[in-house]
């Protein structure tokens, strides 16, 4: 990669951002209400009137979880690019390049390590904005790395899932991420460390049929679409309209498929509470328990990981 390919994407995304004024106002998909983007950001991307949970990019998500909005990025291994030499209406390598330019990320999953109410945690976030959050080799490797990091550092692993499913352009190698991520979950389980899944809108396909449904605790955000097959495929199969609320977070909870539906404003304290209980850590001090409003500061993202801190011992020790 030369300096031009490094600079041009950044430059164009910078220019694009300035040239698109409609980005300033965001429409609520449910009510049509218009919200100023700063207000939306300040409200953790929940539409103030309707309570609709908009998508959150990985950086905003990590900022909303970690103490003081600060964390360390976990370095993710490089994977083979387009081993299938896949081409549909467009070459896969070009689609990948576009997605990287658009998001500024290498692939759909970002992993951070930091503190949640003082407790060290490892958190992975899947970005629906990157090719529909699809699970390919890079995302699979990122999740495996995240789980292994959590296991070796003795922290809980929190997975914010969001995906349309497998990355079809990687064919069978994308399917193999289902057992591969499950292998890493088993390692975490053997280390007796908690695995908490937060299902966000939407999570479907091979992602729900693997790591996104194997949490010790399954949480979903309100209204999130969660399922194996997409609603359109099911309608085509059964040739009927689907009932109201089908495959939504609340429906899954009522059918015994998930533990909790948690509003985004309550996510951080809920996660902290569950992690503390599962890690048998003492209760947090009153002050830290309060939900922290997201800050405007840039997170301090260090290039390398610090030496592991004195992590609390796993519950089994």
């Amino acid at each position, binding site marked *: 990669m030369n300096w031009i390919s490094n600079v041009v994407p950044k430059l164009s995304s910078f220019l694009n951002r300035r040239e698109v004024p409609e980005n300033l106002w965001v429409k609520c998909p449910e009510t049509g209400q218009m919200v100023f983007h700063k207000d939306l950001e300040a409200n953790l991307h929940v539409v103030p009137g309707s309570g609709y949970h908009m998508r959150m990019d990985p950086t905003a998500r990590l900022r909303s979880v970690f103490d003081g909005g600060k964390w360390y990025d976990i370095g993710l291994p490089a994977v083979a690019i387009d081993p*299938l030499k896949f081409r549909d209406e467009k070459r896969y390598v070009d689609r990948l390049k576009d997605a990287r330019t658009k998001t500024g990320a290498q692939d759909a999953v970002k992993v951070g390590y930091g503190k949640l109410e003082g407790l060290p945690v490892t958190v992975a976030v899947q970005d629906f904005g990157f090719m529909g959050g699809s699970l390919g080799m890079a995302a699979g490797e990122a999740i495996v790395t995240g789980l292994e990091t959590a296991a070796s550092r003795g922290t809980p692993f929190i997975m914010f899932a969001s995906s349309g499913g497998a990355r079809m352009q990687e064919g069978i190698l994308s399917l*193999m991420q289902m057992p591969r991520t499950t292998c890493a979950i088993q390692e975490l389980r053997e280390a007796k460390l908690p695995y908490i899944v937060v299902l966000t809108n939407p999570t479907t396909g091979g992602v729900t049929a693997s790591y*996104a449904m194997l949490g010790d605790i399954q949480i979903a955000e309100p209204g999130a679409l969660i399922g*194996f*097959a997409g609603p359109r495929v099911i309608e085509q199969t059964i040739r009927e309209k689907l009932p109201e609320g089908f495959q939504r977070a609340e429906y899954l909870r009522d*059918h015994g498929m998930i533990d909790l539906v948690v509003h985004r404003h309550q996510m951080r304290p809920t996660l902290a509470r569950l992690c503390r209980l599962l890690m048998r850590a003492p209760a947090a001090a009153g002050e830290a328990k309060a939900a922290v409003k997201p800050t405007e500061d840039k997170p301090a993202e260090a290039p390398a990981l610090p030496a592991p801190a004195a992590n609390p011992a796993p519950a089994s020790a």
Partner: protein
Amino acid sequence: MRSYLDFEKPVAELEAKLEELRAMAAQGDAVAIGDDIARLEGKARDALLQLYANLSPSQKTQVARHPLRPHFSDYASALFEEFDPLAGDRKFGDDHAILGGLARFRGRAVCLIGQEKGSSTETRIKHNFGMARPEGYRKAVRLMELADRFSLPVISLVDTAGAFPGLDAEERGQAEAIARSTDACLSLGVPNVAVIIGEGGSGGAIAIATANRVLMLEHSIYSVISPEGAASILWRDTAKAQEAAMNMKITAQDLLRFHVIDSVIPEPPGGAHRDPEAAMRATGDAIEAALGELDGLEPAALRKARREKFLAIGRNL
């Protein structure tokens, strides 16, 4: 009357001519046509071999789905003795798309699991065309746990277009059932061997195909989504299924090259449906050889080897 696939037309013509000659020979003039018959037999055989040595991915898809291709129940009676299908997931119901139970394979007690597509209109409906609901995967989990407790190797025969995309299946947690089944495969302290005998369709296949040894019949396919599904999503045109099949790398030969499977089981000339007995015998030999390689390994070693095998997939491409 043999049924031919569209691309088998040249062979069909030769064989039709052959039939005519044979009928004539039967009526008397044996001496005159004897040579012609022999010559034509050779020609038909060569044409068939030539054709099957160069099948395209979409032609292989047709062969893999051939209605006369041996199915689970054929294998169960040809290769196994004392097989009693065991019913039910002990939670909701009994699924007929996934069958399984205890059996004897070449002298040793084993647990046999697999998808049955059915071979007549009636049985196809009964087995839901091999598309399992959550009950099927939960039955598979139950059987795997049983096998683990009694130290019986698990043999899976995979033949499904995918898990059933229906309302009831979603309601009862299709995604979770698949995820747990993959998890169960990876937890086994006994050897497991999976054979893709026809179609290995996505999550519905991987749920029982996460094994110490994964084998594929020569003309079977294994993919993250059906070629038709990929065509409709990526090309927005189901007529592009051939192109999708080509791009996705779904053949046994491709998958061996990507180290996703361990070996390819050769089929008789003209595919398994032309000589089911020979195809099944070869499959039996391959299963026996695979089990032989895993004999004497301790439960922990089997789990470790399985995990390492899957984690290694894609890392050296």
